[in-house]
């Protein structure tokens, strides 16, 4: 297998921007964990009381919460759930039932106390547990083993296992505005918002942050990941806080948002996947979850409110795309997606992956080709304006904007929930646009896109589901025809790049035959059934059209269809 050839040595090592771990905002947070959790709980309590001003509304929310929590415990219990879960919630339930026999004053007092206990419990559950020692250990452990594997496989000499000729940096390219990111992290608070395609993203991005010389970020990581012990260890040590997607009740969501908002306000660089979950379809996220995004705006507004005259620490949003040739979960996710989208039209075939698969993948990943690239975007302010190197917000005409002005009415900084909801929506649209701009096109993405579109065009009468049901043996693309189409699409990518509307890997340039070979050989490289292959005649065939569809989706939204 050929190694994707990128410019060597471009991925230099970055010095840490802050001296020791004790200076890191995330460490400060975890050192004062107890105080911080109490502050989160206290403020969430206030917020919920504001949202539910009278006792009747509050109680009905509490009842709904208790009911759903008990249901969750019954139906969907996880290993990470606290041992006393069931006891806690049945107590709450009983207290709520007893309320009916009390007078108004007692009712108010009890409802408040119940709410207090619930938000404190949630705040404790959410809060991360960053430990500097275990952070260091984890970091070194990952580095050491990755390096051993890499060198053992690549350098074919005795003793190669202990050489340092290759490092992870050759495997994972970090491109784009790294320097700016480092600068912004010293000037303000960074909120990094990556695309989400694979469960590996969380670990990958943790490595990227470290590798750029940045202090650890706080993460919102799905609680389900903490079920897997090894993940839990990594996550905890990398500063993760826990997001439990089973809990959709008001106290939980408000506490979660408050945690994120306060942490950002206190200067902790954070990271969340604004798409919410992994992209099931392989499409770049179009709709973002607004809840956590709104906390960045809220934090910025509070900073301005606290200090209306003086200089205020600015919050920078940094979009990031993770670009893979191969997504381990692709076959499962696309099945899910089609199943939901097509309902009765689509019958998924069962093909599950176990944990052995993960280990095998990691081994293959480090021993064979298939690189990953991480594309860092230009920083944005919380309204989605570009930031210059000095951290100033810049408008379309290149003029400097004072971000504070967005929060001003009648000459004062004000809190206006509805206004900020609207700002959140605008920011999310802006981030989606940036994703498309910084998305890095690989030969494999383009090959998948062109091949799938060509097959679609060959059967204009079939809808997607009927197309996907065609027997793979019937599908073959003439190489010459494919090459011409590929070249047309590639030209369009060049044009888009010139306009600043997409990025592409350097390997996309050059001799078309070689680029196509590279693309076909790398797309979904480790799947049992390969999405693209050459047959004996040199033509293009597929063993799994559905998975090809997944990889094809990556380039939807650039109007490339017109050149097929």
């Amino acid at each position, binding site marked *: 297998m050929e190694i994707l050839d990128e410019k060597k040595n471009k991925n230099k090592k970055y010095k840490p921007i802050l001296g020791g771990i004790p200076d890191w905002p995330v460490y400060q947070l975890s050192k004062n964990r107890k105080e911080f959790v109490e502050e989160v709980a206290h403020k969430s309590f206030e917020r919920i009381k504001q949202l539910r001003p009278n006792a009747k509304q509050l109680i009905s929310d509490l009842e709904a919460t208790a009911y759903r929590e008990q249901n969750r415990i019954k139906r969907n219990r996880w290993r990470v759930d606290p041992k006393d879960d069931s006891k806690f919630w049945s107590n709450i339930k009983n207290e709520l039932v007893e309320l009916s026999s009390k007078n108004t004053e007692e009712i108010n007092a009890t409802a408040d106390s119940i709410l207090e206990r619930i938000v404190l419990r949630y705040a404790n559950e959410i809060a991360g547990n960053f430990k500097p020692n275990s952070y260091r250990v984890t970091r070194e452990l990952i580095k050491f083993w990755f390096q051993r594997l890499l060198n053992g496989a690549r350098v074919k000499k005795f003793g190669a296992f202990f050489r340092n000729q290759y490092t992870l940096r050759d495997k994972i390219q970090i491109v784009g505005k790294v320097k700016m990111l480092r600068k912004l992290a010293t000037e303000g608070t960074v909120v990094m918002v990556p695309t989400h395609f694979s469960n590996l993203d969380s670990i990958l991005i943790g490595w990227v942050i470290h590798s750029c010389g940045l202090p650890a970020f706080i993460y919102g990581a799905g609680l389900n990941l903490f079920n897997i012990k090894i993940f839990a260890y990594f996550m905890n040590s990398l500063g993760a806080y826990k997001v439990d997607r089973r809990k959709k009740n008001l106290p939980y969501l408000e506490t979660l948002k408050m945690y994120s908002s306060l942490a950002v306000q206190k200067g902790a660089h954070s990271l969340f996947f604004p798409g919410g979950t992994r992209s099931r379809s392989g499409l770049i996220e179009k709709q973002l979850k607004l809840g956590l995004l709104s906390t960045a705006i809220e934090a910025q507004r509070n900073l301005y409110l606290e200090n209306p005259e003086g200089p205020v620490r600015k919050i920078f949003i940094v979009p990031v795309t993770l670009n893979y040739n191969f997504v381990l979960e692709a076959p499962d996710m696309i099945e899910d997606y089609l199943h939901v989208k097509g309902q009765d039209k689509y019958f998924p075939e069962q093909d599950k992956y176990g944990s052995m698969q993960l280990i095998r993948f990691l081994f293959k990943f480090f021993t064979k080709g298939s690189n990953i690239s991480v594309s860092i975007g230009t920083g944005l302010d919380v309204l989605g304006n570009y930031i210059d190197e000095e951290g100033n917000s810049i408008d379309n005409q290149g003029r400097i*904007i*004072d971000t504070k002005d967005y929060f*001003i009415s009648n000459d004062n900084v004000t809190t206006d929930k509805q*206004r900020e909801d609207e*700002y959140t929506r605008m920011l999310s649209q802006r981030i989606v646009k940036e994703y498309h701009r910084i998305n890095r096109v690989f030969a494999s993405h383009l090959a998948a896109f062109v091949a799938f579109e060509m097959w679609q065009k060959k059967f204009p009468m079939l809808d997607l589901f009927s197309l996907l049901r065609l027997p793979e043996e019937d599908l073959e693309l003439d190489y010459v025809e494919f090459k011409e189409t590929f070249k047309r699409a590639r030209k369009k990518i060049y044009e888009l790049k010139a306009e600043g509307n997409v990025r592409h890997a350097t390997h996309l340039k050059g001799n078309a035959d070689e680029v196509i070979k590279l693309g076909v050989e790398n797309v979904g490289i480790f799947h049992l059934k390969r999405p693209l292959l050459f047959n004996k005649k040199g033509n293009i065939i597929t063993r799994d059209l559905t998975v090809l569809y997944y990889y094809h989706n990556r380039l939807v939204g650039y109007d490339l269809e017109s050149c097929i």
Partner: protein
Amino acid sequence: MTSSPASDKPVGVIGAGNFGTVIANILAINRKVILYARNEQMVADMHAKRESKGYALHPHVEPTHDIAMLASRCDVIFPMVPSLHFRAMMKQLSPYLHPYHILIHGTKGFDVILPEGQTIESISKLTREHVKTMSEVIQEESVVVRVGCLAGPNLSKELAQRQPGATVVASHFNEVKQLGKKLLRNDRFQVYENDDIVGVEIAGVLKNIIAIASGALSGLGYGENAKGLLISRGAVEMVYLGRALGGDLKAFLGVAGIGDLVTTCNSPMSRNFTVGYRLAKGEKLDDILADMSEIAEGINTVRIAKKCADHYKVRALITDRLYKVLFEGMTVEEALDFLMRYPLNVDIDFL
């Protein structure tokens, strides 16, 4: 709020045409107003005679030629210039604007930007990439995000006489809607709110098409039955077109939709109505336009809407026939004949 010193800040109005002047006068009931006009001589005249477009200026209205001064003294600005000049005006105003500014415009029309050398007719497809509403122009050209629009059955003349009337303030921001209400509302002027700013803007533009058709029916000598038919079918067509262009149904059923449509189709003084009327009398479009001092917005709207309907595959029969009458030499009778014979007779199918 009325007692805070900030509320003593004047409100800006840009454009001293009929509507701009009347709105400035209405705003002046509640606040000091700075009224900007492009033409220096006009400003001098306003100062000298205290009137504009034949309307006496309220004592609280201060005319000016200095757009920078207006932007620095006013947080809230009402741009009221024709759509043809709107983008140029925004480019001129933009350097003085900040994100704390609130802009509420009252312009009905589309802004079309085409690639070099193309016309609406020659371009292969016309989409929302080319066609923008005024609120979108404001956001493209400036840093202002808190944008609103005014629309509704607002004939300047009647408003000036303090006849009862109403308007819609549409915006994504509650803050903007409340502010618009507070500033404009008085005992003779009711103000409604709507979230769907783009829908309201589009309704205000598309109704001009139906206004031309209404003039044409009148020119043929037909009465109220025909008009009722036109207005109801016209409203349906507006809903379809409006949805394709990104508006929401509700905007079209409200004051800015049906309200404005009925008013416009019944006002023989309007330019759009006149174009239709004279076409029906057998005059040629070029001759009609030669007589008019300002272009009737509706004619451009027909061209834009026809081309967009083609691209978005919307059935827009009235627009389509009107296009043929205006530009392809079809007579009004032929167009009407076609519509009366058209076989599809479902009354309402969008709810």
